[in-house]
């Protein structure tokens, strides 16, 4: 298995404390994008992407031409007004950017669809279980079955493309939330298994030097196999039709309407249908005895 990538803040000292890693570097200001990218490259590490965590709406972010070739994950609270964004659409379309928007309000669901329809890759961030699940299901349908060419809407596009009924799909990696693929570092080099735990100071290691230790390996393994608990605890999620994709993601505050079940069940159906139509198409073009 490849070493997990590091997600860390833009700090020269921190970046020089390790080498040969793929790094997603976090910045709060778009003005720091180029510096952060150069900082990773100059530290003997490989740049995976720059994560911009901003409180500005997308329409108020001024991207510069030299930033457009850098892989960017822009996490913003909203799109802002389209009229203000319109002048940047062409540049965004040409760039290696994915825009992350919290999907807990209808304006952002519309924004995700707008951006995707214009060829800008986006990701719906699940920040709570209190979502408009019906509207999310509509968005998922558009993402996977939309008839016109449009950019990906994650995690739906990823799930539909990679769904396998016989194995788990770690789609949290779209949001850097999968400890076998991403580990999160703070300024001092403490290591957390997820963004959520990083924010709350819940660390599994005090520095990257501890990463090979049995304790860390065990924590990662425990996280990867956490889903098993749903069965031993006889949790309602374990018997949900959407389980194979969801894996109990919203179990902490299970929505009363169980709208998450509708979304993930439909997503499985759509993904299965898509796979089946693709495999039939493949068969049609091949000579068989």
């Amino acid at each position, binding site marked *: 298995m490849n070493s997990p990538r590091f997600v860390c803040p833009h700090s020269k000292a921190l970046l020089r404390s390790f080498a040969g890693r793929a790094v997603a570097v976090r910045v709060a200001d778009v003005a720091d994008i180029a510096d952060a990218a150069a900082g990773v490259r100059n530290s003997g590490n490989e740049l995976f992407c720059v994560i911009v965590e901003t409180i500005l709406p997308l329409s108020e972010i001024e991207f510069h031409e030299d930033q457009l070739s850098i892989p960017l994950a822009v996490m913003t609270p909203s799109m802002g007004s389209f009229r203000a964004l319109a002048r940047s659409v062409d540049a965004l379309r040409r760039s290696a950017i994915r825009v992350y928007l919290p999907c807990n309000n209808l304006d952002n669901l519309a924004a995700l*669809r707008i951006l995707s329809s214009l060829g800008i890759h986006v990701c719906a961030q699940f920040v709570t279980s209190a979502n408009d699940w019906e509207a999310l299901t509509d968005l998922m349908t558009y993402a996977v079955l939309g*008839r016109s060419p449009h950019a990906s809407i994650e995690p739906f596009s990823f799930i539909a493309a990679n769904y396998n009924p016989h194995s788990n799909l770690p789609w949290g990696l779209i949001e850097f939330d999968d400890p076998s693929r991403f580990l999160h570092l703070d300024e001092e080099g403490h290591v957390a298994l997820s963004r959520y735990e990083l924010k709350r100071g819940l660390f599994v290691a005090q520095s990257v030097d501890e990463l090979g230790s049995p304790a860390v390996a065990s924590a990662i393994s425990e996280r990867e196999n956490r889903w098993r608990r749903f069965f031993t605890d006889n949790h309602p999620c374990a018997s949900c039709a959407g389980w194979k994709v969801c894996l109990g993601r919203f179990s902490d505050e299970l929505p009363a309407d169980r709208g998450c079940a509708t979304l993930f069940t439909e997503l499985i159906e759509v993904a299965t249908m898509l796979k089946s139509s693709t495999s039939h198409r493949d068969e049609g073009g091949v000579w068989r005895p």
Partner: protein
Amino acid sequence: MTWENLIYIADFLEASDHRSVSLLGGEPTIHRYFVDFVLYLLERNFTVTVFTNGMVSAARLAQFKTYFAEVSVERLHFVCNLNDPVQTPTSEKETRRVHDFLSVMGPWTSPGFNIYRTDFSLDFLFDYINRFGLKRSLRLGLTQPIPGKQNAFIRPSEIRAVVQRLYSFRDRFDLLRVKPGLDCGFPICQFTDEELGWLHRSGCDALFGCGPAFDISPDMSVYYCFPLSNYRRKSLFDFDSVEKIDEHFRSTRDPIKAESPGIFAECDGCRYQEDGLCAGGGLCQALHRFIDEAPIRLPEIEHELSKIRMSS
């Protein structure tokens, strides 16, 4: 209209290889997202035509200046439906708003005029074209009946007088090089050869046809055209393509045509209609004739008309 519906419509049209969209109302410019919708459709590579009355607030006009100033006049087009200040006077405030709109958006705008009486004047439109630098084409529509409603409209017997009145402005059209454009519902037989020759030389887009233009409402209903907005409307979601919508409305038209080939008795067997050169006037005019008649028509027509009667 919601963003989701707008995107659906844009996808739908794109999939059918249609690259132009018209925004109508009510008054489309008062929609909260009007500027955003226009910019979005332009980003999707549509050409956008907006039908407006030009009564745009100062705040909205400031947005037009900011966001539309660099949009090509080939890609964004306003058709401003104007009223004759003498025959249909409006308040000073409304007039000023229209003038402000034309001052800013003149190069993007063609004047439009709906003819609802035979003694109309076009002089004020030529004046607007010169004063505000409008596009040199004038869209002329016949006011049509809305079957079942009591609106004012030009009756078939008045169309010849309308055409004669229009032709009386020929000198001004020619002098100012303004291209007349005729909306649907003008029958070709109401023009003399001389008048037709003039229209042709002026580059007029007269098709003497009748839709289907097909309009889509905010609730995603699709209908033949505004006057027939209550007749056999269906959900856009029932269709796969523009061609299917066209098919549906052509099948709407056929039974009405079977009952009444056109707005004149002479339309029955008319060679221009048979050759597809003329639609025999507006379908809404033909349908309107059935409204007050005893229910002797095809059940399909009767069913739709009874729904209209009940809703009026």
